[in-house]
C-alpha cells in the first residue's frame, strides 16, 4: 500500500493593503513557498473574525496564519491594533485548551516585504507539517 505523503492545509488571511501586496511581491520575485498555503484576501486584518479561524480548523485546516500591516502602518490607522489584541487572546485560549501553539500565527508583512512573506510561509508550513495532522482540532470538525 502506498502511503500518501502528508501535506498540511494552511489558510492565510492577508490584508489587502500590506500583506496581500507582500504576497504579490513574493510572486513578482518568484520566491517559492509551499502550495499548501492558500490566501484569502480581507480588507484589513481586523476583518478576521476568530470564527473564521475556528471554521478553518473545523473544516480541516492544519494551520491558520493571519497577516496584516505592521503596527502603526494600518491603512485604516488602528485595525491591526485590535487584531493584535484579539489574536493574542484567541491564541492564548487555544493553547489553554491544549491546541498546539504552532498552528496559529500572526505576522506583520508590509507591501515591500515579499521576501518576508515567502520566508514566513515557508517557516510556518514547515512547523505545521512537523506537527502532523490536526488531530486535536479534528474532533472539532463537522463529520459530514
Amino acid at each position, binding site marked *: 500500500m502506498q502511503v500518501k505523503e502528508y501535506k498540511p492545509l494552511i489558510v492565510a488571511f492577508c490584508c489587502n493593503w500590506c500583506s496581500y501586496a507582500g504576497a504579490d511581491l513574493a510572486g513578482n520575485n518568484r520566491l517559492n513557498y509551499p502550495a499548501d498555503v*492558500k490566501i484569502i484576501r480581507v480588507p484589513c486584518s*481586523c476583518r478576521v473574525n476568530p470564527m473564521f479561524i475556528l471554521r478553518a480548523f473545523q473544516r480541516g485546516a492544519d494551520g491558520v496564519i493571519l497577516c496584516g500591516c505592521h503596527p502603526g502602518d494600518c491603512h485604516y490607522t488602528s485595525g491591526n491594533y485590535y487584531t493584535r489584541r484579539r489574536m493574542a487572546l484567541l491564541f492564548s485560549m487555544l493553547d489553554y485548551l491544549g491546541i498546539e501553539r504552532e498552528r496559529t500565527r500572526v505576522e506583520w508583512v508590509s507591501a515591500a516585504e515579499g521576501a518576508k512573506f515567502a520566508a514566513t510561509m515557508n517557516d510556518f508550513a514547515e512547523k505545521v507539517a512537523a506537527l502532523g495532522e490536526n488531530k486535536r482540532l479534528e474532533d472539532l470538525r463537522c463529520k459530514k
Partner: protein
Amino acid sequence: MQRIGVFVCWCGSNIAGTVDVEAVSEALKREPGVVFSTNYQYMCSQAGQDIIKDAIKEHRLTGIVVCSCSPRMHEATFRKTAAAAGLNPYMVEIANIREQCSWVHKEMPIGTEKAIILGKAAVAKVNLNTPLTPGESPVTKRALVIGGGIAGIQTALDIADAGFEVDIVEKKPTIGGKMAQLDKTFPTLDCAACILTPKMVDVAQHEKIRIFSYSEVSEVKGFVGNFDVTIKKNARYVKEDLCTGCGLCTEKCPMKKCANEFNLGMDTRRAIYIPFAQAVPKVATIDPDNCNMLKNGKCGVCAKVCTAGAIDYTQKDEYIEEKYGAIVVATGFNPISMDKFDEFAYNQSKDVITSLEFERLTNAAGPTAGKLLRPSDGKHPETIVFVQCVGSRCDACAEKGKEYCSKICCMYTAKHAMLTRDKYPDTDVYVFYIDVRTPGKNFDEFYRRAVEEYGVHYIKGMVGKVSPEGDKLIVQASDLLADKQLKIEADLVVLAAAIEPDKSARSLATMLTASMDTNDFFTEAHPKLRPVESPTAGVFLSGACQGPKDIPETVSQAGAAAAKVIGLLAKDKLVGNPCVAHSNEMMCNGCSSCERVCPYGAITYEAKEFRMPDRTTLVRRIAVVNPAVCQGCGCCTVVCPSGAMDLKGFANEQIMAEVDAICK
C-alpha cells in the same frame, strides 16, 4: 441561484507555464452555479474582455470569476468589463493564480491543483455576492477653517483663491494667532508682522472669505461634503458693521488696569480694546469681566465717545448655522503653564519669563516698546540665561511636562540669543540645552552663527534651580561636557516652555469625531501617506494642532490641507466605496462596541420603533452606518457579538464560504 462564468487567463506563459489552464477551466465547470467556463491567452486584452462581455450576454451570467493575475492588477479592469456588459461590477471576483500560484510554484500538478482550489474559493464567494452600488452624496462647496492663526489664514487663502467660499472661525477678537505675537522669525530674521499682517489684510479683503472672530464652533453634525455646523458668535458688545476701528473708545475707557493678554499680561489695556494695531477685523471688543457698564450699569463712556454708534451693551451671543463640505482644524498651540516648574522660580520672580514673553519684550509694539528691559525694575539685563526643553522631552512617568520634543524651541532660542547679542553686545548670554536640534533649511547654519559669530555661550546641561537673591537670579546648573557645576548670577532667565495643543482642541475633536493622540494632538489619517487628513472623512488638519511645527512647516501643511479641501470641493458628488459596513437592525443590540472601534466615526445610534408580533411597538437603540464615511475596514464586524454588523463585499458568509472551499 447565480449563473457564474469562469474565465481562466493564461497570461501568455506566465500562468499557463505552471498551471494547466484547460484543466482549471474544466474543473471549475463542475462547481455549483457555474454555467460557463473558458480560458484564453490574455483575458485583460481587448479580445479577452470581449470574450467576457459576450459570455455575460450570451449566457445571461449573474456573476463572473476571472482566474488571472492579482486583483490589485486588474480587478478594476474586469469590473469595468462587466459593467460594460450590463453586469454589476461587484459581481466580479478574481482568483489570483499568477502572483500567488503560477509564479511561486514550479511544478505543473501542484500549481494546477492550487489554482483549482483558488478558483473554487472565488466561485464560492461569487455565489454569495450581491450587486452593490456606491452611494452618492452631494458636496456643499464651502469650507470651514477653525482657527485664524497663520495655519488657518494660509489654508483659507489657498482655498478661497481656488474659487471656493471659506469661513474662518477664530475665538480671539482678531485673527493672527501666535505669529502675530512674534517679533522676528528664524532663520531669516524678517519681522513676523511684516510677513503676517499683509496676509491678514488679504483675508479681510478676500471676497470669498468671511471671518467669524470672537466666535467658536459649538456643534457639528453631518459628514463629509455635508457638515452642519453651529457657530457661536460671542457678544463683543460692539456692532462689527458699524465700528470703524478708530480706537477713540479704547483711549477714553476709564477701566485702565486690565491685563493685556496680547502682551501676555506684561502691560495693561482698557476694558474696551483692540488687541493690536493691525488686528483683523479692526473692531473694538468689550471685555465683560472688566467693563463697569456691563457689570454695574454705570459708565457708558465708550458709547458716548463713539461717533459711529457702534457700542451695544445689550448684544447677546448669536448662533449661526451654516453648511460646509469640508472642515479644516487649525487650532494651534499654547506654551504650557509654568506652575509646576517651581525650580525655575517662574512664579517667584518677574524676571523669569517664557520665550513668548521674551518675544513681546523685544517687540517694538510690546510693553517696553522693543527695549530689552527687566520686567521687575526696567533695568537693562546684563546676564541672560536661556533654559531649553522646559517641559519638553520629559520622562513619561514624570507628573509634569511632555514626553515629546516641542521642535521650535532650539531655533527660537538661538534667535533670541543672537538678537540679544546683536542689539546689546555687552550682555552675556548663556543657553542651557540637552541637545540642539536644527533640522531644517539653513537652520544649523543659523545656530552656528549664534555660537561662532555672536559668542553665545551654549552649555550642554540642565538648569537645576533658579533662586532669586536680591535683584539677581542665581542659576545653578551642570555643564555636562566640562563635568562641573555652574553658578551663574543672571539678571533675566528665559524659559523655552514646551508647547501643547490648544485646550479647545479636545472638545472640538469630540464634536468632529476626529481622533487625538495621548497628548491631544490631532491624529492624521496616515502618518506618512495622508498627513493632512484626519481619519474622519472631510476633516483636515493644518498646523500645530497636529504636532509641533515651525512657520514654514505650518504654511506648507496649511497649503497641503487646502489642496485636499479643494480636491474635495471641486467634486459635484462624492461617490463612496460600496464595500461598507451595514448593520442588521433586527439583530443589533445597540451596545456601542462597533462605534468604539470605528476609526472614522461612521457609526451613530438611533432609537428605532419596531412593530412586535403582538402588535405592540418597541423602541430599541440600533447602530446606523453612514456609508459616506465608512471606509470598509470591517473592524466593527468582529466586535459585534450578535453578528448584526457585516461588511458588504466581504461578508461573514462570503469569507466563510471561501474558507470552506479551500478546506474541502
